[in-house]
């Protein structure tokens, strides 16, 4: 009779069901590392939002570029302006300001090339042009350099001075522009005036070709639990000491990108763009004698600054540094998808060399060193194993007119 009651209870609850806790499946999917239908529904939404965000950035970049490209009134400030500044100004000499270093004066006026809205108006002013062609008037204007409020007018006047007049009256010594002291500025003139550079490039970790050595680790990739006691229990095997290890082999990353570079002056440039990164790994579980490939795709937006340190003829050498934010847009394994789409933030520094095949087309090569911050997920990939990753970047640059 006693057994009847416990049997009754057991039978009564046979097949009894309850609703699972909210978010359970998402948690399991994340833990196992395999994205399944229910769990990926939410990700799909953010996925779509991400595509829209990327599209918006592209439109903004292209629009910004187009605006500048088709603006005929954009000022063409000549970098190697041979007009002189103050040395012949008797007023300054008398007032004791003649000893003031010329560099100081130059440094006070770097913003001249950054005021495009003012210059077109002045260049269309015929009276100014007339003034500029007159030597006497020009000297009068130079006097005004000490008056910072008149600076733009004077520079525009200097631009319109005929070459002959300039060479006769003032030997080339100095300019107001702080970045044209180098004697080779003539070669840079067209670069600076075009301002925009469009690039197509690729990169990979050639320097880390031997990095694909397999490294066993106490893997948590397919979950924290690797004891197989339950499976052995099922088989009547009580050996509970066996642990599973996971061996991952990360292939060299591949990166392709489109970049836009804006020349602040003929040394400094800002760059941004869009990049696509492909990370492939081979992950195997020796105990289970199986393996699978993991393929991750990232879309990223780099942003940085480059500084030209040397230039001669068709070759220029530069340093650059920047950051990049990337979003995983596709995470696949053999026959399936993962449900983890992490963000990846990195910083990098590089030294590059560019060779101009023709005036508007150059090829470049950039050894680079990047640091990739932990994305906070259990996802294993190349940059997780090698956060400090050297790479080689290369590509083409189109210097737009």
């Amino acid at each position: 009779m006693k057994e009847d009651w416990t049997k009754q209870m057991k039978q009564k609850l046979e097949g009894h069901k309850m609703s699972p806790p909210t978010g359970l499946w998402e948690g399991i999917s994340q833990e196992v590392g395999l994205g399944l239908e229910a769990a990926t529904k939410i990700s799909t939404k953010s996925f779509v939002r991400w595509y829209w965000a990327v599209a918006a950035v592209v439109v903004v970049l292209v629009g910004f570029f187009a605006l500048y490209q088709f603006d005929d009134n954009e000022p063409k400030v000549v970098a190697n302006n041979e007009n002189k500044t103050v040395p012949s100004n008797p007023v300054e000499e008398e007032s004791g300001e003649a000893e003031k270093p010329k560099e100081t004066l130059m440094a006070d006026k770097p913003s001249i090339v950054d005021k495009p809205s003012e210059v077109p108006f002045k260049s269309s002013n015929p009276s100014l042009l007339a003034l500029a062609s007159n030597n006497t008037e020009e000297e009068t204007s130079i006097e005004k350099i000490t008056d910072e409020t008149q600076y733009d007018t004077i520079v525009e006047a200097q631009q319109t001075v005929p070459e002959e007049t300039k060479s006769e009256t003032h030997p080339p010594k100095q300019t107001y522009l702080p970045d044209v002291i180098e004697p080779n500025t003539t070669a840079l003139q067209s670069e600076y005036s075009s301002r925009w550079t469009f690039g197509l490039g690729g990169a990979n970790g050639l320097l880390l070709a031997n990095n694909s050595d397999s490294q066993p680790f106490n893997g948590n990739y397919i979950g924290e639990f690797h004891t197989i006691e339950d499976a052995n229990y099922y088989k009547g095997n009580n050996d509970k000491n066996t642990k599973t290890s996971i061996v991952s082999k990360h292939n060299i990353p591949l990166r392709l990108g489109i970049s836009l570079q804006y020349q602040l002056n003929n040394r400094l440039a800002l760059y941004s763009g869009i990049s696509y990164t492909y990370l492939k790994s081979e992950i195997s579980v020796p105990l289970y004698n199986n393996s699978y490939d993991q393929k991750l795709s990232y879309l990223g937006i780099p942003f940085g600054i480059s500084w030209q340190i040397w230039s001669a003829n068709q070759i220029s050498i530069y340093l650059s540094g920047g950051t990049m934010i990337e979003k995983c847009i596709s995470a696949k394994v053999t026959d399936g998808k993962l449900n983890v789409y992490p963000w990846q933030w990195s910083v990098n520094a590089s030294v590059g060399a560019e060779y101009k095949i023709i005036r508007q087309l150059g090829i470049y090569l950039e050894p680079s060193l990047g640091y990739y911050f932990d994305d906070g997920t259990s996802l294993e990939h190349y940059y997780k194993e090698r956060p400090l990753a050297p790479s080689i970047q290369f590509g083409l640059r189109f210097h737009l007119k």
Partner: protein
Amino acid sequence: MVTQIVERIRQKDQRAMSQLYQMYIGELTSVCYRYIPNADDMKDVLQNSFVKIFTSIPTLEYRGEEQFKGWLVRIVANEALTFLRNRKKLLFVEQSETVDEIDEDSAISNTERISPDELHQLISELPDGYRTVLNLYVFENYSHRQIAELLGVKESTSASQLYYAKQWLAQRIKVLTSEKG
């Protein structure tokens, strides 16, 4: 069908994993709730259980649907026990006062009148020690010797906990049925 699902999971078919989850999650949640009637803790235990299930299936020797289901339940029960052991020392309430004899005949007739949900809920309301032993003995078919080994207690403690659990349940079921009229 389950055979095919298991086979597909061995081949890393994610849909098969989803199907397996959908197929058994209701019953396994019920099992887990009997051990751990706390939503957050239950979620953790179920999550760990499924991770273990999916990672263990490749080495599983499939012997039929019934045995497979028993294996799933056993994994959840084991995970629940591990959780209970890790969380805190299980309290086994020893009643010093003399307990009444259980009238199991009336317990059977009263149990007939309550729903599975009500019985399930009453079991979940048992004190931890009572509930754990009752679950292992009644639902997992462990002997008192096995329970004693699992929980690190004497066999007599396991037996007494089961007795108190049944007495507690009989009283609660009686109250519930009397309320129903």
